[in-house]
C-alpha cells in the first residue's frame, strides 16, 4: 500500500468521530479546538486507518464499473473460487500504533507500507491460521514521521467465530 496524498480534512474527521461515537468537540468545532492546548482540530487516535479512502487500489472499496463481491441480485457479485479465505479477504488480528507527532487539520500525509513478519498457527476451530504483519509509516508535509501503524492480519481456512 502506498498513499501519495492523504489530506486531513474537517468533514472526514467529523464523520469518523461520529462513527466511533465520540462527542469530543475537538473533532468538530474549529473555534473550540483553537481554545485547547492542541490549538486546532486534531485526528482521533485511530483516524489514520481511513487513509484507505485515498489508496487508489484499496481492495475493500467497490471500484466503479467493476463487479463487487458483496451481494446484489445474488449473495455475491462474483463467482466464488474454491478454497482460499473464509470470506472477505481475511480478518484483522492486531493493530499497533506509535504516535510521534500530532496530526492536525490541514496536514497532508503520505503513507508507505512494507511487509513485516509472517507466521502460521493451528487454530482451535478455523483450521490453519496464517498471520501476516504490515508496517505503515505516515509522514506529514514536512517529511516528519507522525504515526507508525503495524497491522496483523489473519487468514483462516474456514469462517472464524468466537463461539
Amino acid at each position, binding site marked *: 500500500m502506498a498513499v501519495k496524498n492523504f489530506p486531513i480534512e474537517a468533514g472526514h474527521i467529523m464523520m*469518523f468521530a461520529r*462513527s*466511533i461515537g465520540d462527542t*469530543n468537540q475537538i473533532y468538530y468545532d474549529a473555534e473550540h479546538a483553537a481554545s485547547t492546548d492542541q490549538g486546532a482540530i486534531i485526528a482521533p487516535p485511530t483516524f489514520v*486507518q481511513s487513509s484507505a479512502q485515498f489508496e487508489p487500489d484499496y481492495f475493500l472499496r467497490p471500484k466503479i464499473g467493476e463487479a*463487487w463481491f*458483496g451481494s446484489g441480485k445474488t449473495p455475491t457479485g462474483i463467482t466464488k473460487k474454491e478454497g482460499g479465505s473464509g470470506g472477505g479477504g481475511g480478518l484483522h488480528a492486531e*493493530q499497533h500504533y506509535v504516535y510521534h507527532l500530532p496530526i492536525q487539520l490541514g496536514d497532508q500525509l503520505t503513507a508507505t507500507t512494507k511487509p513485516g513478519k509472517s507466521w502460521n498457527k493451528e487454530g482451535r476451530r478455523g483450521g490453519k491460521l496464517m498471520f501476516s504483519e504490515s508496517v505503515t509509516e505516515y509522514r506529514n508535509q514536512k517529511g516528519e514521521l507522525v504515526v507508525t501503524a503495524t497491522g496483523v492480519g489473519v487468514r483462516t481456512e474456514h469462517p472464524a*467465530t468466537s463461539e
Partner: protein
Amino acid sequence: MALQASRVKVGDVYQEEVCNNLSRTQIVQYAGASGDYNPLHTDEIFATQVAGYPSVFAHGMLSMGMTGKMLTNYVGDGRLTAYSVRFTAQVFPGATLTAKATVTEIREVDGDMIADMAVSTTDEEGVEVIRGKASARLDP
C-alpha cells in the same frame, strides 16, 4: 483537561461504556468514514450466505476506535504515545461495550512523565473483545 502526573498512580482504573446496543447503522457509518467497505461488516446476505458467519460484525477497528475514545477522555487530547490492541472476539450488532484502562506503570522518559496502561474492552456478557495497552504523556 489532560491527566496530571501528580494525580495518577499505579492501579488507577478509568472505564466507560463506549457503545450501547451497537447498531448495524453505526457499523455502516464506520465503513463509510474509514473506507473499509468489506461486506462482512455491512452486508447481512453476504456475511451469512457466502462467508458463513452468523451475522455481520463490527470492524475490529471500530471497537479499537471506540476504545480509543475512552483513552482520550481519560488522558486528554494529543497525549497518547502508543496504543496497541489484539482483537480477541468478534463484536456483533446489539453489543454493549465497556472499555477500561488500568495504570500499570508511571515512568520518566527524557523529562516527560509517561503512564502505561492495560486496556480491556468487554461486552455485556463479560467477554473480552479487545485486549491491549497504551501509553500517554502526563502533564506535570
